[in-house]
């Protein structure tokens, strides 16, 4: 069964004002339980508006959002459940750290859920481990941590609620290349352990391809495409036309294809490109 489903979801900002803007226009998507979905789109494409519907921060203007098969709109009790079921990590989440210690900050969500101190403790320790935060850091003030550590502590706080769906908005932005790799490695580990559903919003396709099963491309409030990662990259030229940056290596391979070298349309990592070129060189050597 799909864990997230939208039916003709439409959202309009500033209805009945001169600034009326349709941010989402009849969006119909289904996300399966356990899937990792990358969400990409240019600024203003509607991707942030979309994810804010998934834990009830926004209410559809028309259409429906079903989480775990249930429509929670207008039902306060269900809304509270959805907030625990769908964890949302905003951009630059470290700005939201506020407790005296890292431990208390991570425990904040589980405490609100009404878990016992023992259960909370287990959750905190597990999340710290999943995010690679050393236990010795837990009693420190969040403000003593490095930038990358703060980011991981903030993500751990959401993971500690053990949501069925974890949504992250640009989880690696502002980090250096090593920091970016570490965040994505951490998310992969988390997914392997928890097998839950993850949605990752990012501008960086290089990062998204390392982890996503499927990619949802939003453009001007509509679904531009929603398909297996490889299939999406075979449409590189169209993606560039709607203002998205495809990986450099994809552009190179597509240009070589245009010159008559048949290297495949769906190349999006350096390793894959290397393999395609090698097999072409070897085939050429034998022929």
């Amino acid at each position, binding site marked *: 069964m799909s864990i997230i489903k939208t039916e003709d979801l439409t959202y309009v900002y500033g209805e009945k004002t001169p600034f009326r803007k349709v941010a989402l226009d009849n969006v119909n998507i289904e996300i399966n339980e356990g899937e990792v979905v990358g969400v990409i789109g240019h*600024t203003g494409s509607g991707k942030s508006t979309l994810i804010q519907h998934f834990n009830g921060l926004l209410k559809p203007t028309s259409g429906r959002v079903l989480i775990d098969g249930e429509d929670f709109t207008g039902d306060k009790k269900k809304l509270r459940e959805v907030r625990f079921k769908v964890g949302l990590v905003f951009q630059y989440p470290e700005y939201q750290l506020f407790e005296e210690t890292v431990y208390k900050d991570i425990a904040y969500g589980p405490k609100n859920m009404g878990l016992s101190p023992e259960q909370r403790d287990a959750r905190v320790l597990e999340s710290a481990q999943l995010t690679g935060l050393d236990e010795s850091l837990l009693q420190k003030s969040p403000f003593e941590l490095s*930038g990358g550590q703060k980011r991981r502590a903030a993500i751990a706080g959401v993971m500690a609620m053990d949501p069925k769906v974890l949504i992250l908005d640009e989880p690696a932005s*502002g980090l*250096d*290349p090593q920091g970016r790799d570490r965040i994505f490695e951490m998310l992969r580990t988390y997914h392997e352990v928890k097998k839950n559903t993850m949605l990752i919003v990012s*501008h960086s396709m290089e990062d998204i391809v390392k982890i996503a099963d499927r990619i949802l491309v939003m453009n001007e409030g509509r679904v531009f495409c929603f398909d297996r990662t490889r299939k999406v990259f075979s449409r590189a030229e169209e993606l560039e036309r709607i203002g*998205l940056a495809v990986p450099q290596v994809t*552009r190179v391979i597509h240009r070589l294809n245009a010159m008559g070298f048949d290297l495949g349309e769906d190349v999006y990592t350096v390793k894959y490109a*290397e393999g395609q070129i*090698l097999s072409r060189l070897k085939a050429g050597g034998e022929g």
Partner: protein
Amino acid sequence: MQVFLNADNVRFSYLSDDEPPVKNEVLKGVSLKVEKGEFVAVLGHNGSGKSTLAKCFNAINIPESGTVTVNGMDTKDDSRLLDIRKSAGMVFQNPDNQIVATIVEEDVAFALENLGVEPEEIRKRVDVSLKLVDMYDYRMHAPHKLSGGQKQRVAIAGILAMEPECILLDEPTAMLDPRGRTEVMETIKQLNETKGTTIVLITHYMEEAAQADRVVVIDGGEVMLDGTPKEIFSQVETMKNLGLDVPQVTELVWRLRKDGYDLPADIITEDECVEALAGLMS
């Protein structure tokens, strides 16, 4: 060539809030000269000291020991502070933190008004600056309604209006989407090429650094590498060990070289890569 920015054996520390404060030395004897008209990219992982160094060139940070001069002016000399800030303007990461006015052109005029520039001259410079960053058509717009890339270009225009000879940019594209990044990079390159503005660009994007004349790598508060983009990025293993990256095309060619194919080691652009690979496979 004329040296415009000069850091000579610069040491700098931050003090923690602890009691007594703990000293954290961030720059450990950095020497770096930037010539007038150069476009230098500075790379380094978070905490390497690269932003701290940039702030030394704008007299926000004053070295603990060693000297920093901007166009010959010592940043320790308080009486030259205004002149230093006018000759080396700084653009920061978050465009929202740099915009003060509610109309684009008023924002660009803000510094000039504070400097007591004549109103006619202000009008002229604001128009010229906005045209340079291609935001003239938006001069009467509200900044908060612009995209990230547009806001960042307005912030750059605000610096340009002071007619600085040098612009220091601290990860100006980190919070922007791909389109915004391209806009800002185009603006920077154009200023460097047409106006001869000296550019110091701190970035985490290797493809941006590849567009500079020179790349400086900072690690642990010291200059580790300094050379042309080709010289720096061809050292793939060294860069990876420093926690940095190389452009994807460089990595692809590097891998194929390791597989035993004869390709140039210094490929850093898409065009070079396409040409070399086409040659190899033909």
